[in-house]
């Protein structure tokens, strides 16, 4: 086919140079993040290794923490989850469980297991929420508060929790997150060291394949399931390099909804969680930071690599696809809501570095990658591809991905290692090497689908199905976590 006659032919060279330039921008962005993260990790390891956290735990002047645990249809696991939260190592701890109008027996289970008694229901309504139906306190656990409310979704449940919480700091977790017993003092440490800290986020690790019992991860293992295995590598890269790197480059923009610690008053002053978005965790951090910038306040939002919480990741492409689609819709929505901040020097590093990064590298990356794949297929079809160069380009990109994955495993190993066996680490590296063959392309498609749905105005959560924390034979098991999270918003 003779292309010289087509105007496309004249554009082609510029087009593929554009793709190449985008590739270079990505490498520079990732490289900067990795370098910043490694520096930050080294400093953090030197600071905390050998440190005793007992004095933070036992001190009369430690800040009090309220854990907010929204629950929707969690009757199978709620008792065990709440027991695990009450057993966390922190002296001045309050646990607020918000039953978001579950139609199942979640509330009955709580009532029976924790000897709940109703107290006259009045709430200091600092944030507007759906009505609270009843308030309970436990005879056996004085630091447990249970609130039953009309269904309103996760954000609304968290706002009710914020109205009720009395702690100086508020820890937000998903009801199915497993928090390491010593994670809270680690997460609280930055609040003690700097008054301008408004939020900290912990490391989310993948629990699939590990031995779990009594709400604790007893032995960490790499998942045998490929989909989950590739996510282990992804999570390691995202948290150890992505989030940690931002500590050094002007503060992170995302605190995972699965495990984050916030200044309560700052959250309330920012208006709490936004209801009509699927990216409520990023939206909250942006609101907090935006408010601080506009008030001219110094503020810090930090990621803490040694404060660990565990989550169960999807093991099927169907569920994973829905999750990634929702994450990308959330990102697009949040960036659109705060579009005035992007490239705005008034918002400092967040406006000039953080948000442009999320727009160009995170939001548009799948679109560019998809265009690249389509272009590649077109060139092959029309016979215009230089095979040798294309292969070289692919191998370079693949090599960088593999290096990124191996470096993440090494950084993990040298800082706060969790895996006991060599084969687990090698398995994770192997999964990360296989990512480029199918998994990566699928995530590109899901993310583009998310963006497309966002443009068409879809704002639902999609249904998250969990298989439960599986345990290899011989180990103890926990009941299946059926947590279909607040889809009903």
């Amino acid at each position, binding site marked *: 086919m003779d292309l010289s006659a087509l105007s496309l032919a004249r554009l082609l060279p510029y087009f593929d140079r554009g793709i190449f330039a985008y590739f270079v921008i990505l490498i520079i962005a990732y490289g900067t993040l990795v370098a910043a993260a490694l520096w930050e990790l080294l400093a953090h390891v030197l600071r905390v290794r050998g440190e005793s956290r007992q004095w933070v735990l036992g001190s*009369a002047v430690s800040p009090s923490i309220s854990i907010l645990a929204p629950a929707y249809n969690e009757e199978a696991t709620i008792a065990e989850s709440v027991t695990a939260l009450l057993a966390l190592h922190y002296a001045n701890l309050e646990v607020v469980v918000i039953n978001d109008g579950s139609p199942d027996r979640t509330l009955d289970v709580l009532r029976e297991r924790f000897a709940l008694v109703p107290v006259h229901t009045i709430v200091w309504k600092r944030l507007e929420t759906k009505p609270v139906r009843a308030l309970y306190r436990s005879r056996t656990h*004085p630091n447990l508060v249970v609130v039953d409310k009309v269904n309103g979704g996760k954000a609304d449940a968290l706002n009710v929790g914020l109205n009720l919480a009395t702690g100086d700091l508020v820890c937000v977790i998903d009801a199915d997150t497993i928090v390491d017993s010593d994670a809270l003092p680690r997460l609280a440490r930055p609040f003690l060291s700097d008054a301008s800290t408004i939020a900290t986020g912990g490391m989310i690790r993948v629990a699939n394949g590990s031995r779990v019992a009594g709400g604790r991860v007893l032995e960490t293992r790499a998942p045998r399931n490929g989909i989950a295995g590739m996510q282990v590598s992804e999570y390691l890269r995202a948290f150890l390099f992505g989030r940690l790197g931002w500590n050094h480059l002007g503060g992170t923009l995302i605190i995972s909804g699965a495990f984050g610690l916030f200044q309560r008053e700052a959250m309330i002053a920012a208006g709490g969680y936004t209801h009509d978005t699927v990216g409520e965790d990023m939206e909250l951090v942006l609101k907090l930071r935006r408010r601080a910038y506009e008030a001219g306040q110094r503020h810090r939002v930090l990621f803490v690599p040694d404060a660990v919480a565990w989550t169960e990741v999807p093991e099927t492409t169907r569920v994973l696809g829905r999750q990634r689609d929702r994450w990308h819709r959330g990102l697009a929505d949040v960036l659109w809501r705060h579009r005035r901040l992007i490239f705005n020097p008034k918002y400092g590093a967040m406006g000039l570095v953080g948000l442009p990064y999320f727009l160009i590298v995170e939001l548009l990356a799948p679109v560019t990658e998809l265009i690249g794949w389509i272009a590649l297929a077109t060139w092959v079809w029309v016979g215009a591809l230089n095979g040798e*160069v294309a292969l*070289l380009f692919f*191998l370079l990109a693949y090599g960088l991905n593999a290096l990124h994955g191996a470096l993440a495993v090494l950084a993990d190993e040298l800082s706060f290692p969790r895996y006991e066996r060599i084969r687990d680490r090698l398995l994770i590296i192997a999964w990360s090497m296989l990512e480029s063959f199918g998994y990566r392309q699928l995530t590109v498609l899901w993310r583009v689908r998310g963006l497309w749905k966002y443009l068409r105005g879809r704002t639902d959560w999609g249904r998250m199905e969990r298989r439960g924390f599986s345990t290899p034979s011989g180990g103890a098991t926990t009941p299946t976590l059926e947590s279909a999270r607040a889809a009903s918003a």
Partner: protein
Amino acid sequence: MTSGLLTGALDDRLLVWGRWLLVSQALLFALLLGAVIVAALARWVQRVRVRRLTIAQDLLARELTGTGPVSRVVLAQLSALPTGLQERLVLEFGRTLRGAALDRLRSVGRHLGIAAQATRACDSRWWWRRLHGVRMLGALDHDCPALRRLLADPHPTVRVEALHWAAGRADAQVVSALVERLVDPERLCRFTVRDSLLHLGQPAASALAALLERRDVVEQAGALLEDALVVARGLAQPILLEPVLALSTHVEAEVRARAVHVLGAIGSEQAAVVVVRALGDAEAIVRQAAARAIGELGHWDGALALAAQLADTSFPVRREAALSLRRLGSVGVLVLRRARTDANPFVADMASQVLDLPDSVFHRVAA
């Protein structure tokens, strides 16, 4: 026509560069993989060391609970361990021991040369070496001039560790250094100072009272005064009464609130009068502190004033007043029961909620 990168012939030099990049990537990847394996093997070796550590722990535990001089045989066995393991042992035991056992551990540390090494580390130019030094000496409850110098170390992490160590030293020099550090620019240092002063207890009270009477401190206000008042509340010594009474009329509401809070902990008639007067303060934060203080003082005469606060415009003040009424015992509970049927729904709601609280919850909330 201009040639593209993937669709045209690429410059040979660029191709060579690309190939070199690819080879370097492969080498780097192999290196990283090797490093992961080496690190994992090192941890496997460490596990073998942990077994040795467990044996050494048993040995040392037996020795620390014994009497008489430390056994030479045990010392010889401990000396045979790598330095890292020896230090780990000292850190693990040092954090939990007190009294004679700690004296014996200190003696073991001296014999093994750990104390001397840590003292040298305190003078290192590298902050992490100094940090290691202060941690080791802290675990051994050792005292030396080099360690005292670290109370003013330029690196905050080192300073924090030294200030933490100071909680066990009640001498005038350390107490005065701690009180001075209440103005430390690092928040974690200030937190540690507060914690250490509370641990020191009564010996810290006079130095703190002197600080609270200093004109420059009173005028400076802000974080320093607030931190000092947090410590004063924990210490609750009569010597602090006069300076705190003076601060109860401070221009800053936060300072007034904390001062009233301290008065609730110290007690005395004078304090009770000031606290009841503070219920009429313009700032809710002060009224809230006053309501709490009356409950803590057990000041029955304040019950009616508290009952009036059940209709306060601020939710936290209403709540604190209701909790304090219940804290007052039968008199307060009677007032709350009457308030349950009050025409004002805000009064009735708050009284009902506080009366509904199970005892265990009430004691926790009121603590």
